[in-house]
Each structure stands twice: as C-alpha cells, then as structure tokens.
C-alpha cells in the first residue's frame, strides 16, 4: 500500500477559526453565549484529536469468481482490518473492462473500530465478453471525526474472464466437404457408416456382415448394403473485425456487430468441436496470426481465449486476401461479418471464385444504436445500408449465401444447399 501522511481537512481549519474568533469576541464583547455556540465544536475537536488514528487500515478486495459468462454476476468481497479506529474510510474500487456494479459498491464509505475486522460484498455484473480488471483501490481515510485525512492506493488485485454468451447453436450434420478418416458427418464416399447409400452386388473384399440377406435370397445372387462413410469436417471461422457498428450492451443488453460475431463464433466453434470436427479461426484484423484447425476441448479453450482479445481494427485488402488464400481447400469457411466493408466483400468474392465452400453469417444486429455526430449521420447511415445491400446481392450472384445470425438452426438451410451443390456432378473444363 502506498500512501500519504495525514493532512488537515477543511473541517479542522473551520473549527479552529470559529473557536478562536468566537472566544476572542466573547471576551471583547462580554458575551459568554459566543463561547457557548462553539463549545460543542471545540469539545468534539479536542476529543477527536486525542483519539485520532496514526496507522491506516489494511484493505483487501477480491472477486468471487475468475470466469463469468456475459450477464452473470459474482461478488466483490471487501475485507478491512484496523489496529486503530478510523472514523471514515472511503474506498474507491478501480474497475476496468466491461464490469459493472448495478447496486453500487464502486465507492463505499465505512468506518472501522480499533482491533476489529469488517467484511462486506457488493454484486459485480459482467456486461460484455472480454476481460475485466480490478485495478486496485483508492483509499481515503478520515480520522479525528474528519479533521485529518490521508490518501493511499492499494495495488491491482486481479482479473476476470468474461466468456461470450453462446446461444445454444445447433446445425444439421451436413457439410459440403467432409474430410479426415473418422467423424460424424456423412461424406460423399461410400464406406463404413450408418446412412444407407443403396444395395449393390457383392464384390470380393466386401465384409460378410454387410450382406443383405433378404435381397440376396430374392434375387438369387449375393448383395451387400452400401453406406456412406462418416468423416469429420474442417471448419474455419473468419471473423470480420474491420468494422464495428452499434453500441455494445452495457446494461441494456444491446449488442454491436462485433458482439454478434464473437458470440456466433463461440457458439459455432463449440458445436463443431463437440461433434469431433476441427475448427480454426482467422481474425481479419490480425490476418498474420490465424489459429490452425484442430479438434478437441483444448481447441475450444484456445479459441475462446483468442475471441476474448478480439478488437475492431482496420486492415488492407491484400492482407485479407493473403490470409484467406491460406485456408485449406476442403474447409467449410464460415465468415462472420456485418458486410459493411468493401475490402472484405471483394476478398470473399475472390475466395468463392476459387471454389471454396463458404457461408456468410450476417452479424449486423437487429437494433442498432448509433451516436448522432451531426446532421449528416442519418443520411450517411442510409448510404452505408444501400452499399451493404449491393454487397449482399453481389455475393449472392457469386453463390455466397448471406444468412442473418439467429442462433440455433441459423445455418441449416444453407448447409444443406451447399452440400447438395458440392455433391452435384461438375463440368470439367
């Protein structure tokens, strides 16, 4: 704890001035009532100064949980102990990040008696995904009934991880291109699996338990049941962080386009990783640092950690194109974007021309709060929306579906469509 020495507060100079002036006037004017009116102040000041504190109390503050979901709350626990009585103790908690104390508690005034401990807690709510920090406590102590004052700083006490709210996303198990050896998605190739592909005549090498006896008996020749093989998918989430629109929800649960993108990315990653698929991440504002596709629980933790650090930032089209070109050919690319950037739109069109399977998840929120910066704000926003509509139409013309983020089942129709398209015979040129 770093602190200053005790300093006189304004109440001390007020008391001394009043006592001296009224005492002298009482003698000069022969008026004992002038002494009487300041006697309570004099008596209180004298008593308080005789019983003043010399040492500051010990203060510790800590959060009840290190990890929260968006909107979840925990408690900030205060623990104060003092060797001497401190008449008033002002505690100002320095919070950073998207944390709030809706019932107050960021600034508390209490008192501590000598040799006692004081414990209390105030609710702490996470308002948005990211990291929150308890940067320390600014402590202002008053002794001698407010006549003396000292200031001290209790240093940083910890951080809280606020995970993005994942909206229970589920999707059909159809993916355009299933890769790998094992997994849950039906591939286009026949092999070991559950989904029926048809019945065909027995060929050497077929397993005996695959023989379809009813058909074999009826036709008089051995037939086997043919199934599609199950494979896992390679999913790459592309996060368009080149622009952020809307106010992030501190309190009223409104969300910005980046909030939508991060929440959707978390939900989609969790869904595919739980199904045994490999999921990677590319943040377009950090195109040089893609997260390679991997499977498993560890990958989910890794992706969430990266998502917590996501910030909006401008990036050039060449860098975006370079980063997109490194995405594996067989991967299902899910782009999370508010579609407000021309550079991103052009880069996506290029990726589609290269024959990648791609879905654009529109992360522009339904309700947007924009700061009105001048008389042209509304017109500028209308122009921006018109450009956005053009971009969506252009992407659709290139065969890139853009679907709004609606949580569970958002991508089902598009995934089925993409799968059918991928299964259709192609014209080789």
């Amino acid at each position, binding site marked *: 704890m770093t602190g200053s020495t005790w300093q006189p507060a304004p109440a001390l100079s*007020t008391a001394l001035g009043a006592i001296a002036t009224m005492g002298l006037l009482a003698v000069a004017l022969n008026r004992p009532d002038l002494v009487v009116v300041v006697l309570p102040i004099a008596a*209180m000041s004298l008593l308080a100064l005789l019983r003043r504190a010399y040492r500051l109390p010990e*203060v510790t503050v800590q959060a009840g949980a290190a990890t929260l979901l968006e909107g979840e709350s925990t408690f900030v626990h205060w623990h104060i102990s003092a060797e001497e009585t401190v008449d008033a103790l002002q505690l100002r908690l320095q919070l950073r990040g998207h944390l709030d104390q809706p019932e107050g508690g960021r*600034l508390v005034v209490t008192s501590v008696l000598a040799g006692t401990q004081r414990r209390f807690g105030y609710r702490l709510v996470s308002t948005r995904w990211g990291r929150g920090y308890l940067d320390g406590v600014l402590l202002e102590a008053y002794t001698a*009934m407010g006549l003396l004052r000292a200031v001290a700083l209790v240093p940083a006490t910890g951080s809280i991880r606020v995970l993005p709210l994942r909206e229970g996303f589920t999707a059909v198990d159809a993916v355009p291109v299933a890769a790998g050896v094992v997994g849950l998605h039906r591939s286009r190739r026949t092999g070991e699996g559950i989904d029926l592909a048809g019945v065909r005549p027995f060929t050497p090498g077929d397993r005996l338990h695959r023989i379809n006896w009813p058909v074999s008996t009826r036709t008089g020749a051995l037939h086997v049941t043919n199934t599609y093989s199950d494979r896992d998918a390679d999913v790459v989430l592309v996060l368009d962080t080149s622009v952020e629109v809307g106010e992030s929800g501190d309190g009223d649960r409104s969300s910005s386009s980046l909030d939508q993108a991060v929440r959707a990315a978390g939900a989609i990653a969790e869904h595919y990783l739980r199904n045994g698929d490999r999921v990677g991440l590319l943040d377009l504002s950090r195109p040089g640092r893609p997260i390679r596709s991997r499977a498993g629980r560890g990958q989910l933790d890794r992706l969430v950690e990266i998502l917590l650090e996501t910030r909006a930032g401008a990036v050039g089209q060449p860098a975006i194109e370079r980063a997109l070109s490194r995405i594996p050919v067989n991967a299902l690319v899910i782009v999370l974007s508010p579609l407000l950037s021309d550079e991103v739109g052009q880069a996506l069109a290029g990726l589609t021309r290269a024959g990648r399977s791609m879905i654009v998840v529109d992360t522009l929120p339904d309700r947007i709060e924009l700061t009105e910066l001048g008389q042209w704000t509304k017109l500028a926003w209308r122009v921006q929306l018109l450009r956005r509509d053009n971009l969506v139409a252009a992407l659709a013309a290139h*065969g890139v579906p853009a679907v709004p983020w609606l949580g569970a089942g958002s991508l089902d129709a598009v995934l089925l469509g993409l799968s059918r398209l991928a299964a259709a015979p192609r014209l080789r040129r």
Partner: protein
Amino acid sequence: MSRLTSRPSRARSVAFVPDWRERRHWQPSALVVRSVQAAAGIAVLLLPAGHHLIFEVILLIGLVTAVVSPARNGPGLAMIGGLASWVVGDGTYHHPPVERVLPFAFALFVLWSATALAAAAPLDCIVRPELVRHWLRQSALGLLVAAVLIGLVYAIGAVTTGRSTPVLEFAGALGVLLVVAVAAVIVARTLREGPDADPPSSNGRRS
C-alpha cells in the same frame, strides 16, 4: 441454386442517440447526509434574532457550496455567515436567552459535523450503516462533554455577573489565546506523525 441466395434483409431499427454517456448515480444514503447538512444550515440561518441580508447571503452561498462540494472552502463560508449573523443579530452587546443559544449551538455543531462527514462521503457513494452509527455515537459523546462545559460557562457567568473589570477581560482574552495556541501545538504535533511508516509490499499488505 435458389437455396443459396441470401435471405431478404430484415428491417433494422436504428436509434440515434446523443453523445453523452457519463451519468452519476446519487445514492440515497449520501443524500441523507446532505439533507441533514442543509437542514442544520437553514436552522443556523433562521435562529439568530435579527436578520442581516449580507450575512444571510454569505451563509447561503457557503451552505450551497458545502452541500455540493463539502471538501472545499464552502463550510468555512457558511460558518462565517452563521456566526456573524449570530453576533450582530441581537445587537452586539445584548445577551440572548439560553433557549435560543443552545439550539443555535446545536445547529452549528450539526452543520459542522455533517459537513465533515459529507466531505468523506461523495454523492455517488454508499454510506455504510456502521459509519452513521459510529458518527452519531462520537457526536453524542462530544455533545455530552460540551453540555458539561456549557453548564460550567453559565455557572461562571452567573457568579461573575456585574463584576467584570478590564483586568478580568484581559485575562480572559489571554486565556482564549492560550487555549488556541495549545490547540494549534497539539494539531501541529499530531500532523508530524505520519500514518504508515512501513514500506509497501507487493500484495498491498503492510509487512
């Protein structure tokens, strides 16, 4: 291919809001302290017998400053206005009755004490109940000691009525100066001793 076309864009509601975000949330507990301060200030304004506009204006300005920003010089201004009003209220050499002196002394004390508490409790802070209890207990103790001293002052006054001489008045003035000097020495000595001599440690606890 029709499945791959985008869904029709949804109607989006856009709200344009003015660019001000900082809102202070005043806490009821802190407002109670300010109300006590204001009530005591109004009592100090009304209790003197005569009313002098200049002192009342000084008191009101000081009171408003003390309520809004108690850690500054407003409280001193309010005390100057209130005391000046009291001194000249009944005529400079007139002795007001005890029934008016005691309420005025009490109101002045409450104003001073509540302002000292308000300086420690900004409007957006939560004032914990234990602080209020402690403050009331200490103030009651101070008032008890003051009551004894006031009784003493009036007893001495009754004994010395009509016997005042220039020598006695001079001795009284010297006595007041002596008391103030002793108080100043006590305060100066008390300020020389710092709150914490121990060096800070990494976890914020003192060694």
